[in-house]
């Protein structure tokens, strides 16, 4: 008996098979894709209209927020059955299946939601800025946001994807776990913001600095915030990587 399965040359990662898996998943994914793309398009249009009235930018913010939530919970579209036997038995490696889902949910969709903010919001906010210092602060924040901030949005989506893979068909569990990660993000962000505000005020009091210098205070606070965003993003990056690995392992060893 030949035990060398490599002779069959079918168990290694294959791009061709991954494409076939993507085609298989596409009918489930394309509704989410359309929703996120639609939300993104609507945000761009609203932002373009924001010079007419401030209301448009407020609505754009709301639409963008809803689109973000759709993206976080997008893996729910895979929740069709508690026992997805046809999907589990699909002749593709766990690596190919998870790669397709990770690329779609954690790369393609976040990139899609970033388009309006890249093309519109920075320029729009720039027009509202008064001083050079504020513009500098805006640039710093944006730089961090695009480099690492994207991982903040990947964390909740990665959690949702993991929950959907680990407990197929249990939508409420996946929603709760995703909201848990978002809550964690808010709590960490809020705590850090509070701590920096306290630290600044405390240092000012110790140094006897004039609190009335709002611009300097804003600049210092912005710097601290940008730094904290960096660490939060690193944390989210690690969480995302761990969840992607767990999703792969679940796909490999899913039991009925």
């Amino acid at each position: 008996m030949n035990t060398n399965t490599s002779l069959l040359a079918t168990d290694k990662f294959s791009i061709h098979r991954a494409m076939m898996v993507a085609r298989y998943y596409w009918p489930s994914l394309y509704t989410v894709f359309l929703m996120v793309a639609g939300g993104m398009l609507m945000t761009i249009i609203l932002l373009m209209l924001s010079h007419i009235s401030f209301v448009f930018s407020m609505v754009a913010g709301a639409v963008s927020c809803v689109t973000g939530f759709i993206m976080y919970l997008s893996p729910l579209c895979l929740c069709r059955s508690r026992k997805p036997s046809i999907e589990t038995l699909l002749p593709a490696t766990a690596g190919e299946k998870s790669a397709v889902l990770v690329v779609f949910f954690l790369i393609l969709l976040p990139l899609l939601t970033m388009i309006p903010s890249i093309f519109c919001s920075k320029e729009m906010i720039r027009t509202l800025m008064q001083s050079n210092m504020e513009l500098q602060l805006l640039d710093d924040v944006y730089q961090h946001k695009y480099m690492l901030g994207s991982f903040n949005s990947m964390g909740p989506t990665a959690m949702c994807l993991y929950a959907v893979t680990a407990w197929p068909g249990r939508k409420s569990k996946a929603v709760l776990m995703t909201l848990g990660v978002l809550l964690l993000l808010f709590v960490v962000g809020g705590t850090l913001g509070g701590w920096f505000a306290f630290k600044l005020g405390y240092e000012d009091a110790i140094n006897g600095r004039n609190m009335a210098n709002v611009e300097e205070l804003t600049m210092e606070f912005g710097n601290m915030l940008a730094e904290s965003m960096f660490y939060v993003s690193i944390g989210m990056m690690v969480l995302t990587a761990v969840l992607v690995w767990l999703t792969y392992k679940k796909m490999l060893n899913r039991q009925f």
Partner: protein
Amino acid sequence: MINICLNNVSYRYPDQPNRNAISNANLTLSQGVTLLMGANGAGKTTLLHLIATLLYPQTGEMEYSLVTEEDIFRLPNRGRKPSLMRHLFMLDDNPTPSMRTIKEARKLHAPLYPNFSSEMLESNLREFGIDERTPLQSMSLGELKRALFSYALSLQTDVLLLDEPVNGLDMGARDTARGMLARCVDPENQTVIMSTHTVSDFKPLFDNIIHISHGSVAVAASTTEIVERLAFRCSPIPPADALYVAQETGIFHSITAADTYDETDIDIHLLYQALNDKNASKVITEILNRPPSI
């Protein structure tokens, strides 16, 4: 062709830690159509899930070998590798397909199975009167089962596992399904394992019978072996040497040890009753599991 062997396979569900769903199963699955029978909760679906790699055994080992004209390849039994999965398909009792229509399945799912036959699918659907563009979600359970049964057969996998495939089908549809199974399955190269309680509809097709009782494989024999060893008779008076007797509308249906010169037709329903009978099951199991005399 795929050969499957179960060596001392046991499985216990995590939520039932004190009960083996399958215990110490030793089995070599033969080509052809195999009837998997047993009472509710006996472990039929668990066994099918183990064969399909939807469950991994806690003890023992599953062996899968791909037999080609040149060589025999041992296939990986863990990780659901494509080298095995492209040869295997399972149709669940309550299927919830992720595809919307059979047309979509043909375009997006079937290409992953190398032996898929589009012509066979078309002919099967035509026989059942199903339009491949009909959304699966809008179908009744019977229609859904017919559509997926047609589709599963057309994938032409070496191993096809069917869990209650005709449950919920009307009599006409069951007849059609029988004809379809006879036409689509190549008993020399394909292994079809079918768990069903409606045995009479498919009786002429079964090449092998596996009986499971309380998680143990009690009997695994070919129908030829069974009729060589047991005789199934109907008489107004029960035979004195009967191993099991059941009376129905004044006639006695009985199982006796087979007479070498008198081969009878297998009565699967009676055999099932006998194997679930405390007194008869022991003797009949012993006769069926006896090694063949040379």
